[in-house]
């Protein structure tokens, strides 16, 4: 193959980029402004707004810790955030678009192995100015494209400098435009508490991504980060907002799933600890999409573990709204969630001593633990049985799905006759004999969005 065939050239360029980028990284302390940071960088700084938009939304899209939901900005002249969160569109991957999610800049002085924006990656770099980003946000908001802004950034120059850029954008929006819509700000680990305080006063929600579920993995793959450092801005933010009002600012984080060997048990135990300490409102899970070649990470040919991510979201839902504890769903002995069954069914099959449940008498906490009956289904049952005793046919008419629930309930004392109440039998009945065809991702997500598990 000739030296100038496209692939060879690609490889050479890659080496060149890496070399240059590493050199730049070593000197970044002397660099005065963002523009000079890019001097000598072979990839030209993106020029038009369109190019910037393309690059900076590309680099932000792997962050999923982003959804809008109610919070009120008093005295705003433009904008109002909606209590239940509004999706303004859905992207080709079927995800809700509610916020303008871009990076301030995708330039970064750090080397996190899993991240597409790490310093040594040969990708085009770009940066918005705070003014540009604020203007686009307002233009988009007025046209009803978005509910608000997700403000995040690669680390450029220093943590404080980066946090400062985000704060400046926030201030333009709140003070100049009187914008009252939703703004989610990523706190930069390692920046000063003073900056965090200013951000917390103006943002609707803040977050800091833990990314890897154990300190060991962090040390290995994100040498500039520690769990302490990542949690520090969250703790600071909570303390600051608790100081001012009784309702702390809502906070969230993201965990990458499948990049490192932590089990579902490790992950869910971490989430539930974070929920219990009331530190976080949401933990987001992101199936790792291999972007970088690194011996410590799954190869770039590995498919992202989407099903596992989905099961974790279901389990998380059970933690937050159904009164389950992490140890009930997975434990030292069973460290993995079942792939074929949703976590609630998985739990119920291992605890058949609680079943069957009589639909006409069980209290709400027990009803919601029946596989296939969600909070909505339980409320329907409670309402209807005030008027008369319910049988199977009436449950169906009420819109309560019996597909899974059937094996775990009695109605007026009657249990279905076909399948005995035994783990192996029910499992077979639920999965069917020809479990050759996996349900499509479509079906999983439908369930997840409805939130009924």
């Amino acid at each position: 193959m000739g030296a100038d065939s496209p692939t060879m050239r690609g490889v050479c360029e890659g080496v060149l980029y890496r070399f240059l980028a590493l050199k730049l990284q070593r000197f970044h302390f002397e660099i005065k402004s963002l523009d000079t940071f890019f001097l000598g960088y072979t990839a030209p700084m993106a020029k038009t707004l369109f190019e910037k938009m393309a690059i900076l939304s590309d680099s932000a899209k792997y962050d999923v810790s982003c959804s809008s939901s109610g919070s009120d900005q008093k005295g705003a002249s433009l904008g109002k955030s909606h209590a239940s969160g509004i999706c303004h569109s859905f992207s080709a991957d079927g995800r809700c678009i509610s916020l303008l999610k871009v990076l301030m800049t995708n330039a970064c002085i750090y080397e996190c192995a899993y991240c597409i924006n790490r310093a040594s990656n040969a990708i085009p770099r770009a940066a918005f100015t705070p003014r540009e980003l604020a203007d686009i946000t307002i233009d988009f908001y007025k046209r009803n494209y978005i509910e608000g802004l997700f403000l995040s950034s690669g680390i450029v120059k220093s943590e404080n400098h980066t946090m400062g850029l985000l704060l400046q954008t926030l201030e333009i929006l709140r003070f100049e435009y009187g914008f009252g819509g939703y703004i989610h700000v990523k706190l930069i680990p390692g920046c000063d508490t003073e900056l965090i305080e200013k951000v917390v006063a103006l943002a609707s929600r803040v977050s800091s991504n833990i990314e890897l579920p154990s300190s060991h993995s962090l040390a290995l793959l994100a040498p500039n980060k520690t769990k302490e450092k990542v949690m520090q801005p969250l703790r600071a933010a909570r303390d600051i907002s608790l100081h001012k009002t009784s309702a702390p600012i809502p906070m969230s984080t993201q965990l990458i799933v499948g990049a490192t060997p932590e089990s579902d048990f490790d992950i869910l135990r971490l989430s539930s600890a974070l929920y219990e300490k009331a530190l976080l409102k949401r933990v987001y899970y992101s199936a790792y999409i291999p972007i970088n070649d690194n011996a410590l990470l799954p190869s770039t040919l590995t498919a992202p573990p989407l099903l596992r991510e989905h099961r974790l979201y279901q389990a998380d839902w059970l933690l937050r709204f159904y009164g389950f504890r992490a140890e009930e769903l997975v434990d030292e002995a069973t460290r993995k969630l079942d792939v074929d069954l949703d976590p609630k069914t998985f739990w119920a099959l291992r605890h058949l001593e609680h079943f069957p449940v009589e639909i006409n008498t069980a209290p709400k906490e027990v009803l919601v633990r029946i596989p296939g009956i969600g909070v909505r289904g339980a409320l329907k049952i409670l309402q209807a049985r005030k008027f008369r005793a319910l049988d199977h046919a009436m449950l169906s008419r009420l819109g309560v799905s019996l597909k899974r629930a059937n094996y775990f309930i009695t109605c007026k004392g009657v249990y279905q006759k076909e399948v005995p109440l035994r783990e192996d039998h029910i499992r077979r009945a639920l999965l069917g004999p020809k479990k050759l065809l996996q349900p499509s991702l479509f079906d999983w997500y439908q369930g997840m969005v409805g939130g009924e598990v």
Partner: protein
Amino acid sequence: MIVVYDGTAEGFLSLVFEVYAHKLSPTHIFKSRPQSLLQIHEVRSDETHARRVLEGMKRTFSPLHVREIQQVLLCDTLAFELPLLAYVNLGFKDPKNLYDPTQESVRTVQNWARVYGRMVHRMKGFVRFEELEEGVFYAKIQTDYNILALLGHHFVERLGAQGFILHDVERGLAFVSQEREIYAVAHADVPQVSEKELTCKGLWQTFFSHVAIQNRTNPKLQQAFVPLKYRTYMSEFEGRYSSTCKH
């Protein structure tokens, strides 16, 4: 008995009035006169009658149930008449009945109200405004049910002092922000958009196509959330920026 009314909310309430006043028991209710030689009872819209029925419902039913009835009345493309009439009857017998989901008409009306509410919620996100030369924001909508008033008030809160017009193309109605009123649209010209409009739309389309993760492309899922009928006025789904994105 076959009953015909004019398809308006006022007409339906007048119909309810006559059902009670004249002890009617309709088997079919039509919004326009069917081609038929059978005997047909025609209800005339009557404001006094309609008001009396509405007041009666507000006195007797809980606000929640009155709102459900109002929402179903705005589902103008549904044949909601008979179930809604049964529901109202049930409520006048004993307002407690309206809480009983084992009653069929209660379930039906509740479901419609829920579908209506979902449509309003979806459209709060899917409406797309364009800036006109005069600085007014303008959006066309196309919806199965009449949700103009609810959407209009939502955007009054959202856009504050910014003036806007929301145009329901099929119904020929427009909500105007300053007056907070709905007008009948006799004729609409193609509006002149502002210079900035093209840039904004382009930036939005760029953002939209780049925010999707290729390894997770799932058009079926996307379509479940944004059914095709909603896409008419959403610029991100225009031609080359359709659901799949290329780099």
